[in-house]
């Protein structure tokens, strides 16, 4: 295969718009460059990945800020749910000495509290620090029991992916401190988080869910989760149209974990249930799928959304 044909093939890795804009020009530069070989090919692959990421993240800073605020609030509520569940049990049992809260739960609560403060203040480093510790904690919890029950990762996967999304969103989010304007937080730069009370209500329901057993509300636990999910969905629908598609891109990695775990890991769970004495760890391909599929879901929905927006602006 000639150098030109090889370079043409590598250039197909770039997004179509990028290729249309720079493809011919890049080919000219590549053919003039007397340094063919693997490093040149790797540089093109790296450039193609960066171009895809840049395309996916373009115009995402405002949506990312909303995702950061909502995600940090819900993860904080979930961390509080775990602590409040134990505290409420201690309050109602005869002998509270056997009901203890492990350090991990406190660290998780503190970490998501810091991440939430960072999201609220518009401080990138504070948000990133809190979310990074929170993510580490979400990963550490299932791995404490991984060697005994590898399937525990299955139930924690969507927490881990949500934490990753909040961390990534915080890194690219629009800045500016939030102030309450009526019922909605808003920044001086013009961002208003509409329907905010729905997120607070969803978080509150998660905390109540944690305390349900202690207060004889165990049968309503699934109902709390469903209503909280419904609140978050209505919140997303109430956002401005230009924000909704971008929010869908950020939500995609979290939503894809449900079918991924249900169908992708079905055999694994069945094996674990049928063979409780045999440990079958998660394989390398399964690990790769758990990381790559959510990332691909984000890129896919972001690309689709960009295309829809472009078509809409052309037709306007």
């Amino acid at each position: 295969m000639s150098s030109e044909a090889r370079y043409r093939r590598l250039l197909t890795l770039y997004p179509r718009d990028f290729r249309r804009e720079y493809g011919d020009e890049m080919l000219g530069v590549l053919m003039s460059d007397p340094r063919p070989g693997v490093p040149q090919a790797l540089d093109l692959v790296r450039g193609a990945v960066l171009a895809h990421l840049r395309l996916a993240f373009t115009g995402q800073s405002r949506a990312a800020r909303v995702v950061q605020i909502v995600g940090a609030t819900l993860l904080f509520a979930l961390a509080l749910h775990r602590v409040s569940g134990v505290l409420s049990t201690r309050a109602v049992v005869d002998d509270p000495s056997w009901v203890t809260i492990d350090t991990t739960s406190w660290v998780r609560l503190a970490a998501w509290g810091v991440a939430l403060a960072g999201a609220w203040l518009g401080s990138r480093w504070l948000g990133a620090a809190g979310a990074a510790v929170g993510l580490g904690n979400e990963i550490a919890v299932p791995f404490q029991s991984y060697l005994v029950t590898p399937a525990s990762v299955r139930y924690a996967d969507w927490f881990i992916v949500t934490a990753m999304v909040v961390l990534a969103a915080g890194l690219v989010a629009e800045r500016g401190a939030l102030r309450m304007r009526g019922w909605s937080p808003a920044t001086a730069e013009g961002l208003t988080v509409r329907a905010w009370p729905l997120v607070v209500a969803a978080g509150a329901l998660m905390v109540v869910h944690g305390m349900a057993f202690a207060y004889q509300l165990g049968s309503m636990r699934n109902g709390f989760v469903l209503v909280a999910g419904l609140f978050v969905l209505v919140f997303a629908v109430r956002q401005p149209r230009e924000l909704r598609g971008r929010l869908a891109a950020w939500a995609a990695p979290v939503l894809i974990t449900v079918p991924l775990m249900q169908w992708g890991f079905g055999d694994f769970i069945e094996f674990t249930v049928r063979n409780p004495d045999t440990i079958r760890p998660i394989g390398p391909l399964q690990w790769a799928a758990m990381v790559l599929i959510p990332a691909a879901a984000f890129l896919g929905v972001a690309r689709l959304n960009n295309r829809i927006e472009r078509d809409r602006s052309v037709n306007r």
Partner: protein
Amino acid sequence: MNEPTFLILTALAGESRHGYAVIEDVEQMTGGRVRLRAGTLYAALDRLRGEGLIEVDREEVVQSRLRRYYRLTGAGEQSLQTETDRLRAQATIAEGRLRARRTNFGGATA
């Protein structure tokens, strides 16, 4: 601002240049230490265009291939000036401390 970006803006501060001319100028400026590759160069050019720091000056077709010349914008000039001032301030501090160190140790090196 990372080094390739600084060098690309510096290359375009002299005159408008096409992609391969930027690679050659950067190599010459750095004494051969930095030789950009096409993937790195065009990722940076696309980003700098998006940020309004550079723009297309003109296009020509050479040997049936498109050759596009880029030039610095006013915002690009300002950005390069800010980065140059920052680097100069840091270099001045480093130079002063090295001079003081040589004086303190009577010219001896550790």
